[in-house]
């Protein structure tokens, strides 16, 4: 039986493009310092937003990597959509192989990046912050005037777009698995004809 479209890949492609738009506006992970917050860090693979006392701080290399990630995800989503409409072509495997990995890599690299950032910030500034939860953290002595101890309330957590990204990555993997079924169906011999 010939499959005309890979519906899972189609949904995955649309979801990937939707994920990019969502991730620009809603962070995957957020850290708030102070209550009410005087500083916040909003992170997603396509947008890192540092806000200190109402002033936005941009780090050029992070900004470039955010754009790179957005372009990479967008290309993955578009290629996934093209594949989903033509899953039986000779080049379909290449399209699928390119498209389905993008959200998966985004999620994996994001998680690795979060742990790396947590480790590096603590290593080099001495300021430890939670990835999930809230608490009170002391600033390193070098960041406070002499004779003064500064303790800040911090809270952090993953936002719903992070979990949506995991679902999108799951859909992409499912599309890859479903492709095997489509390919197997395509290669089935025609049913024997009755005499």
């Amino acid at each position: 039986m010939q499959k005309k479209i890979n519906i899972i890949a189609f949904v995955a492609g649309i979801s990937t493009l939707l994920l990019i738009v969502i991730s620009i506006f809603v962070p995957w992970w957020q850290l708030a310092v102070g209550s009410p917050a005087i500083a916040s860090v909003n992170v997603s693979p396509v947008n890192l937003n540092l806000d200190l006392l109402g002033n936005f701080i941009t780090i050029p290399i992070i900004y470039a990597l955010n754009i790179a990630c957005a372009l990479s995800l967008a290309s993955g989503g578009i290629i996934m959509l093209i594949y989903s409409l033509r899953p039986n072509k000779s080049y379909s495997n290449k399209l699928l192989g390119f498209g389905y990995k993008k959200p998966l890599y985004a999620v994996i690299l994001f998680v690795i990046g979060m742990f790396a950032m947590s480790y590096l910030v603590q290593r080099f500034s001495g300021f430890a912050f939670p990835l999930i939860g809230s608490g009170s953290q002391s600033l390193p002595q070098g960041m406070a005037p002499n004779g003064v101890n500064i303790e800040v309330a911090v809270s952090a957590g993953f936002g719903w777009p992070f979990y949506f990204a995991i679902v999108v990555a799951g859909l992409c993997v499912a599309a890859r698995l479903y492709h095997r079924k489509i390919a197997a169906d395509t290669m089935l011999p025609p049913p024997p004809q009755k005499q």
Partner: protein
Amino acid sequence: MQVIGIILILISVGTVVGPVGAVAIIYRDDLSQLVITPQIRDIINGNSPIIPVNSNSNVDSGGGPNLGGLMSPTFVSAQVDEATHTFTATFKITNTLNYDLTLKSFSANVEITQNHIQASSLSLGNPVTVQAGETAPLTISGSWTQAAQDYIINNYSSSASVEVFIANAEVNVNGVVIQSSGTIDAGNIPFNVVG
């Protein structure tokens, strides 16, 4: 099929190299600014206009840290209840930041500079929110010790004021708790202010 493979490789490389290469070219004169911009460097060095607290400018006549900078209180009036040894002082507090601040709590001890006589304890009446760049009234309540009263009667009978300093100050602004282990020179308090 070969062409599609090459196109996909070019997309993969281009989506990363393009944005990263662009910022590298923009900051080619000083590549360190890719990560640490002048804005971030000023914050690290404590010279940022975003946070007007300079660790080099906090040494006062008492040799201790000064918690000024973020806020500058001005004395307005005071009411004294001699029977209960309590008083309430009203200040005007100015928020020098471009960001709303909430003073959640304040506590401190007041000591007479001469002989370090424990004079009083202070605390904030109610939390105060000060809009960015604006001034708001602030009420501090406290009580004085009999020892301080006796000391002043015996040693300052011919004086119009007494020099005091603030010790063990703790301020909670927007969940940021600043504790001073040193002393803050509060200057001369005229007796006509406190009756």
